[in-house]
């Protein structure tokens, strides 16, 4: 089967890949660009572990072909912050114990960061709605919501159990 060229700007770095059209964006990121922070969870567009930003919007990279991102800007968890300068949502997950096993965490952080970019002062209800496409099988939602509210500068005491 023939390949097609795909130009991707990933975390500010331009790449040109030759890919089969059927290559999913998540596999292009993980297998071609070695950006393994983006996880494959359910692989059926439910769990959101594969969430990345496409031109700033949260999308599920297991349900996109790499060719659909041709010419677009992709941000993965690796591009959100650096070890020395974490993104506020990453910092807040650290401070609030926003993860247990960690598998869903990249997707949760990308979904949370996309929410705050759009709505910098969300209510708890808005945070929970923004996470409808992200599943945590440790069921650690309480601290995840708390982390995102903390990143938004809201006191965690406002979070109900």
């Amino acid at each position, binding site marked *: *089967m*023939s390949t*097609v060229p795909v130009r991707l700007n990933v975390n500010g770095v331009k790449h040109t890949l030759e890919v*089969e*059209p*059927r290559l*999913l964006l998540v*596999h292009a990121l993980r297998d071609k660009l070695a950006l393994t922070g983006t996880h494959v969870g359910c*692989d*059926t*567009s*439910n769990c*959101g572990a594969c*969430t990345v930003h*496409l031109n700033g*919007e*949260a*999308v*599920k990279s297991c*349900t*996109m*072909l790499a*060719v*659909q991102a*041709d010419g677009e800007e992709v941000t993965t968890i690796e591009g959100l912050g650096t070890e020395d300068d974490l993104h506020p949502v990453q910092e807040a997950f650290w401070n609030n114990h926003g993860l247990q096993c960690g598998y869903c965490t990249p997707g949760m952080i990308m*979904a949370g960061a*996309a*929410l705050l970019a759009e709505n910098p002062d969300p209510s708890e209800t808005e945070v929970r*709605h*923004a996470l*409808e*496409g*992200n599943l945590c099988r440790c069921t650690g939602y309480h601290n995840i919501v708390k982390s995102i509210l903390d990143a938004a500068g809201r006191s965690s005491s406002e979070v109900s159990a």
Partner: protein
Amino acid sequence: MIPAEFHYTAPESLEDAIQALVDGGEDAKLLAGGHSLIPLMKLRLAAPSLLVDLRKVPGLHGIERQDGAFRVGALTPHRKLEFSPELGIVAKVAAVIADPQVRHRGTIGGSLAHGDSASDLPAAMLITEAEVTLQGPDGQRSVTAADLFLDYMTTAVGEQEVLTEIRLPALDGWGSSYHKFNRRSEDWAMVAACAVVKANGSTCEDVRIGLTNMAAVPLRATAAEDALRGQELSPENIAKAAELAAEGTDPPSDLNASTEYKKHLARVMARRAIADSLAA
């Protein structure tokens, strides 16, 4: 899960997209946001030989009011509909499709052409009495929402046609509401009801009620509509009308709900949707 191999093209004009469909034969498929098609391809329930990606075709995006109607480009994502309150019931329905990530990519045209009666937009198209524009090798035609949905995931969109735009009559002065019943917020509806109500004082001048996942196609709850039209919009009359919401339906039982339970849900969702339409 990886889709079966296929050829891919991303034409830059509508004419070229239609030509690619004609040349590609019966196994060619159009790709919009891909949020119905790609999951099916990953499960190998669909294996098109050619994908014709519409993303570079100009003129298929956006929402524009023209006289008494909105023209909505087929590639307009659900997220855009959700934040367009002027669309009334369509904005409310779009806001509860799956989850934010899916709403960023999924499109109105893709969803309607896919024709899943468990998806949210088809019933809203029925009650807004929308029309879609289809462009094919032999020209352009319009199809009303009532004639669009033929059977389970089967629509009037021809194999060589592109659904380019949706015409939504502006229901100025109508209230609207959508009630969807599911176990997890990102799931498809077990059953959902959408309603638009035109009140004249406390009288129901007109009402339209749509049902999701009660048959292979979206339905209008005409018996309930007829029972309420011209009546006082009292809680009793709304409840009485909503009792007729499942009349004439025979929804297939599935993993989530039996036939009887779906009929029960249709009555409850219809009652809530009508009642909440009065407040909004």
